[in-house]
């Protein structure tokens, strides 16, 4: 991000995650699930990584925390508080300075009482006191600690999971789809809690498929497509189509109910069948031969984009989508 000089809490550059797999028989192949991903989170900021379900977004969270499965390999750099996050360092910070808020109550041990899990087994008075304070803050009754996860409602579970994350006094929260299947009012309440946490000078990396919700609470949106980040935009860029940079983001914008509910044909390519060059190429209205080459990430208007067709400054011209198309052809 070129337009912000704030302190980085998290900076991920050129992150790639791939899985070793056996194809037929003993033929080992590498499945690239995330390729050259760049994301950064600053002080007091909520950054939403938006992508469709099943596109491997969760692996981003797992990569930061160092909890990828054994057959995954990792490339690229992750910096936390300006310091390189090695696997060893990840072990030290996870659950403390970096906390995960998972999707649902399924991420709690079904046979262990909630309180014991929130405190992570710690019974010291200080930890006890901190839990009680968090329960008060999130309007959870003190008896909640003696319940089992199956006895908690959806709203309670969400607040319990958030309390769990905050027990270690983190600087960064990674929220992995924290609101699926949640009522809108509950989801908004959850987002308010994240906003409050960020406003205290911390960072939130929100991983979600819900762009509407992300736009309501986040400061910046990172668009995730086929394992990479195609665009990084300010939330205000989503006010109009012209301010957006990547054709996929524009398609996403048009697909939103308030902007016409218009969808484009096709679906995200499977990691085994990624196209040459631009991953969005086969579905892109601006597609041309050059798109099959290497696509660098460029900084355009305080955001980044991975598209060679995107103009440095769109706002001076009155380009609609058709015009952009003709322009590219000329």
């Amino acid at each position, binding site marked *: 991000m070129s337009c912000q000089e704030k302190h980085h809490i998290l900076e991920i550059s050129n992150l790639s995650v791939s899985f070793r797999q056996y194809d037929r028989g003993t033929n080992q192949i590498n499945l690239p699930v995330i390729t050259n991903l760049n994301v950064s989170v600053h002080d007091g900021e909520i950054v939403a990584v938006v992508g469709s379900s099943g596109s491997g977004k969760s692996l981003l969270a*797992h990569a930061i925390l160092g909890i990828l499965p054994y057959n995954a390999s990792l490339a690229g750099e992750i910096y936390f508080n300006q310091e390189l996050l090695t696997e060893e360092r990840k*072990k030290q910070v*996870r*659950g403390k300075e970096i906390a*995960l808020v998972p999707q649902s109550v399924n991420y709690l041990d079904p046979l262990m009482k909630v309180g014991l899990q929130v405190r992570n*087994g710690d019974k010291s008075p200080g930890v006890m006191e901190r839990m009680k304070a968090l329960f008060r803050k999130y309007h959870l009754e003190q008896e909640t600690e003696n319940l*089992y996860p*199956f006895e908690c409602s959806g709203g309670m579970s969400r607040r319990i999971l958030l309390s769990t994350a905050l027990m270690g006094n983190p600087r960064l929260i990674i929220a992995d789809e924290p609101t699926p299947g949640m009522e809108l009012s509950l989801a908004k309440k959850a987002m308010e809690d994240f906003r409050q946490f960020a406003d205290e000078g911390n960072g939130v990396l929100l991983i979600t498929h819900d762009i509407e919700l992300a736009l309501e609470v986040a400061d910046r949106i990172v668009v995730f497509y086929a394992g990479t980040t195609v665009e990084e935009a300010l939330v205000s860029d989503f006010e109009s189509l012209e301010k957006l940079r990547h054709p996929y983001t524009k398609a996403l914008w048009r697909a939103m109910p308030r902007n016409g509910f218009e969808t484009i044909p096709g679906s995200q390519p499977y990691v085994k069948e990624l196209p040459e060059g631009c991953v969005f190429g086969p579905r892109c209205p601006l597609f041309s031969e050059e798109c099959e080459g290497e696509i660098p990430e460029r900084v355009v208007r305080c955001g980044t984009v991975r598209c060679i067709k995107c103009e440095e400054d769109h706002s001076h011209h009155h380009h609609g989508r058709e015009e952009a198309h003709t322009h590219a052809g000329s």
Partner: protein
Amino acid sequence: MKGTKVQFISKNFIRMILLLIAVSIVTFTLVSISPIDPLSANVGQAALGSMSQEQKEKLEEYWGVNESPVQRYLNWAGDFVRGDMGVSLLYRQPVTKVIAVKLSNSLFLMAIAWAISGVLGFMLGVLSGAFRGTWLDKLIQGYSLLIASTPVFWLALLLLLIFAVWMKLLPIGLSVPIGVEASGVTFFDRVQHAILPAITLSITGVSNITLHTREKMIDVMESDYMLFAQARGESRWSMIRRHGLRNIILPALTLQFASISEIIGGSVLVEQVFSYPGLGQAAVAAGTGSDVPLLLGITLVTAAMVFLGNFIANILYGVVDPRMRKGGTVS
């Protein structure tokens, strides 16, 4: 809550009765159609040839050869419901008494094997599953697969050869020393004679429990709550200790009680090899000697034991699992 418990127990009781009826019918049918002639099997071909017709008829009446099978079954069943299991034709003693003696011999053996295979199998399975893919896992898995594919009687012979014949550390067979009066047999003698058969049973039992526990442990290790525990900075050991053991205990209970049937099945072969006078050996003798009352008695007793084992596991589930204890739904 209370009502459902009574309902649960009575329902299972009825189920057990139905099972026992079915088992007795099947066993009886199998014995009836078996080609073994009780007379030639028990009296001997030569002796039978030198007998008079009258003597033969007497014997035929004793073994019930001329009655129709249905009639014989009904006779037996009528007595059984009145608590009379009949008289063993081979041992010439009430079946209840024969079973009591043989069962006490076998129970000792089976209890040891059950405990050892259960505890050892559980520990190995948890380790193997928790450290999947490591050399430890490969070692445990390799051992389990090797033992699981080894016939139990062959293993028994092997141990007999090594510890009794070559090293002369342990007795070669039977449950008490040869040539010693019953009053002179010490508890130590009994233990010494039970060691080899019990070890054989344990070794084979371990592999099964290990492999099943390993699978369950892998499921637990791959669960969302384990991933979250890791994300919260818990160490591997802490995860296994706090969440792994807690969540593996339910399937382990089922396994442990289900393994009763395998232990009983295995004891038949093992007792045969070690000439150990237990229930298994009596079952073989009853089967090959057409001692129908004894065979039926043994079959029903073992079927009831297996059923009760599973039943206890069901009840323990309700005690251990808070989701069942608190009356919630199991997700």
